[in-house]
């Protein structure tokens, strides 16, 4: 009897002590401090005033959207209770409105309740025409945003919106606090420095000190919805330096716990990882390095009609030439040279998510110089004495432009070599990225003007829905002097079948049907060889071995699950 009591007592004591341990284990801030380094420093914590990835990701520690994408590209409810769909009644039958239900009991880090009014305010803030909101595309087609009650918001669209997950979804479109930003609408937006640097949020951390373009110090949000998170009491978000220096700080010196976007030579990264302090993580999204073929004549002799649809290209309008250019490229080798773990060869301009990825074009993975030569022979392009093919006095001589970037220049040199083997002469040109991607109307070197025969760059799309991205290759989107060169259809591709498929997709809600259309559009362009995809580029980051819970997400902010990060025992 006595023994039994003793044992029961001991058991009870043991149970109590374990639960006490469990309690201390689960407390917020139990793991001390975490250091994050981004080699591009954050300038501002308001994604509506900065489209820069570094700013959006830094802000994602503090402010959150209603829903975001997980590492697989699937939508997950974040501040909302569930993802609204047509099935659960959240999206209306006519596809013109979406109803979000906010999780009850949410508070801002200052303790005030998070309500539908904040969501409505966020929409109005971005859609203010004089504010210069950089995420305006997220609110494309929005007619009105209405708060039904404190926890319900309806977004109404002007026309049917089969993919209504633009506003308030993903790191680019988080909810800001109405009370804090009330005086910051429109032209006043940039003057609210305090609010832009120290936004009040619902996220796991809040800003304690913001040093623009340098360091952000943060501490755990005491009002975070899960009292056991985040595991870290304080956080440092350091910016500056270079990608290799930040890789070194995590992998070699161990000063930092997480380093973002390590675009450095694959062999250097591997040797740093060998030091044993940290782990490299990579993930793939939709970013494709590609060559855009100019179907129009870029000759300077044409003056204002240069690179416009009025004049077809003298030889690139021949599909045999375009196909031969693609066949001559060894994509595996390009990956090995340029990206290592951070790349994989691709034959599609739309490589992901999985349901949209076509397998119809995989033949391009194998380099076929002989086949390319045979194809050009058959098309009547005869090899000249100087090793360059010609037909009717037109020589296959290409001006190949891209932005200034070590990997791109390596690619140019390799591709020039391969093309010379099929009798194509190539002149290389590189333009500073700020000019190439900048929209300076007076510069002849922008990627929209495409005053060259082919150009290479990488592009992707936000989130997981390709409708807008694939819609960028319809006839209307051809850049020209009439639309001030504002267009996304760089190849100047104009195919009525493609436009029809794009229009059909805009009116289709069923996900499988949308996938079929997206694949068909991808295949049309791939089989017409107007875009030559090269490499599907992933994101590479690194974390210290002692940091647990990192899930690299290429569809949203990399820091999306920072609340779940913890220190290994």
């Amino acid at each position, binding site marked *: 009897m006595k023994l039994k009591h003793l044992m029961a007592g001991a058991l009870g004591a043991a149970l109590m002590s374990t639960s006490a341990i469990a309690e201390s284990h689960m407390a917020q801030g139990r793991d001390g401090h975490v250091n994050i380094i981004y080699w591009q420093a954050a300038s501002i914590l308001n994604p509506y005033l900065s489209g820069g990835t570094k700013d959006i990701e830094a802000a994602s520690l503090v402010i959150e959207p209603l829903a975001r994408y997980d590492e697989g590209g699937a939508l997950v409810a974040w501040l909302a209770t569930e993802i609204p769909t047509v099935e659960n009644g959240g999206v209306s039958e006519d596809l013109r409105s979406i109803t979000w239900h906010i999780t009850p009991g949410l508070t801002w880090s200052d303790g005030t309740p998070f309500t539908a009014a904040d969501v409505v305010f966020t929409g109005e803030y971005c859609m203010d025409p004089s504010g210069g909101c*950089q995420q305006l595309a997220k609110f494309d087609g929005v007619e009105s945003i209405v708060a039904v009650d404190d926890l319900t918001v309806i977004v109404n669209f002007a026309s049917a919106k089969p993919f209504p997950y633009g506003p308030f979804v993903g790191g680019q479109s988080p909810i800001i606090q109405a009370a804090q930003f009330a005086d910051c609408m429109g032209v006043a937006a940039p003057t609210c420095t305090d609010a832009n640097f120290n936004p009040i949020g619902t996220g796991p951390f809040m800003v304690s000190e913001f040093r623009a373009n340098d360091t952000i110090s943060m501490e755990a949000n005491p009002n975070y919805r899960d009292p056991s998170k985040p595991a870290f009491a304080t956080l*440092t978000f350091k910016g*500056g330096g270079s990608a290799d*220096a930040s890789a070194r700080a995590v992998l070699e010196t161990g000063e930092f716990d997480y380093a973002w976007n390590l675009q450095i030579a694959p062999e250097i990264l591997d040797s740093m990882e060998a030091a044993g302090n940290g782990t490299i993580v990579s993930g793939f999204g939709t970013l494709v390095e590609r060559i855009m073929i100019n179907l129009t004549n870029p000759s300077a002799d044409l003056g204002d009609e240069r690179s416009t649809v009025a004049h077809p290209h003298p030889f690139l309008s021949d599909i045999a030439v375009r196909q031969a250019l693609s066949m001559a490229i060894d994509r595996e080798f390009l990956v090995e040279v340029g990206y290592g773990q951070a790349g994989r060869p691709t034959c599609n301009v739309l490589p992901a998510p999985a349901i949209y990825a076509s397998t119809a074009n995989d033949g391009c993975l194998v380099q076929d110089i002989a086949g390319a030569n045979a194809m050009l022979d058959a098309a009547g392009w005869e090899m000249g004495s100087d090793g360059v093919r010609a037909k009717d006095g037109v020589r296959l001589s290409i001006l190949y432009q891209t932005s200034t970037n070590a990997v791109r220049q390596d690619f140019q040199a390799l591709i020039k070599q391969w093309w010379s083997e099929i009798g194509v002469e190539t002149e290389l040109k590189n333009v500073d990225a700020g000019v190439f*991607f900048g929209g*300076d109307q007076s510069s002849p070197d922008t990627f929209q003007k495409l005053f060259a025969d082919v150009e290479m760059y990488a592009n992707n799309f936000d989130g997981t829905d390709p409708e807008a991205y694939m819609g960028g290759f319809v006839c209307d989107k051809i850049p020209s002097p009439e639309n001030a060169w504002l267009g*996304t259809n760089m190849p100047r591709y104009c195919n009525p079948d493609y436009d029809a498929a794009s229009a059909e997709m805009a009116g289709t809600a069923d996900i499988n049907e949308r996938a079929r259309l997206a694949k068909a559009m991808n295949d049309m362009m791939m089989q017409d060889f107007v875009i030559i995809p090269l490499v599907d580029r992933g994101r590479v980051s690194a974390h210290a071995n002692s940091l647990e819970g990192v899930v690299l997400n290429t569809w949203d902010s990399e820091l999306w699950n920072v609340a779940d990060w913890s220190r290994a025992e």
Partner: protein
Amino acid sequence: MLNYTLRRLMFTIPTLLLISFIIFLILDLAPNDPTGNLPLTIPPEVREKIRASLGLDAPMFVRYLLWCNQFFINEPLNMLYEGFNWCIGDCENRLRVTSWSTRSPVVDLIIERLPQTLWVIGMSYVVGILIAVPIGVISAYKQYSWFDQAGTFVSMIGFSVPTFFTGVLLIVVFSVMIPNDSWFWLPSIYDTTHVVTGLDSAGEWHFSTLWSNLSFQFRQMLMPVMVLALYNAAQISRFMRASMLDNLSQDYVRTARAKGLKEKTVLLVHVLRNSMIPVVTVIALGVPQIFGGAIITEQIFKVNGLGQLLIVGIQGADIPLVQTLTFLFAVLIVIFNLIADVLYGLLDPRIRYE
């Protein structure tokens, strides 16, 4: 002398105005675009709106006058308001020079950056001078000795090996190869938020806290300061040596020796003083570079001072930031040129300005 100084000061005003206009013109003509570095997923129509919201749709001349108004009128008035609480005009809503990337006043950003730049770059300048002067003196006095040869060799290395090499080399040795629990380990990333204070987290003053904060500051400054000091010392020691050599062969040195003065007095009082005249002006002319920050060294050690601010501004086409920073550098250069000229007159009685 005073007359001369005042005349020169008057002359700086049109000079600086012209410089500010030329900087603006260059920045405006350079092909760059503040939306150029944004992700391609932001559509062109939105980019147009962003440019308009930054005021880029206004003609160049209007934008220049706007900047002049903000910089020459609003900023000084704001300083009066924040420093002395003197309010002239509308103090709360004054339009200050605002950075495009951070949407915050440029002058505040600069003030935030000054401490680390002055600490690291300024300290490296002081350390460089302290190393350079003795090396220059001894090298000249014992010309072609082994010390002179070694000094020349080190100067050549300091002069010709770029800081992005020496910096990374030091990081590889002291941060990577030496284990980070060792006493010799040095941080490769500068913590700009570190404050040297004796107060601990509970707000109590302890000598040990002050000491540990100070030693941390010392350790994180050590590598960048040494890298830059080597470079500065290399330059100044060569000037010092050449100037000493010029003076050592002068007649007054022979006279001093003939008078029976001690060699130490001859060297350190007569020759050194006279040799310092050109070196002091060289040192004064180099001071604006401290404020300019050492762009590369700051980048390597992530000091994030003024140099890094300028580079980020240039990369992001943040024109108001670049314009203001470059103009402030121009002001410093003009002022320190004047100071060097005045110093020259004060130090060398042979030189008189009328």
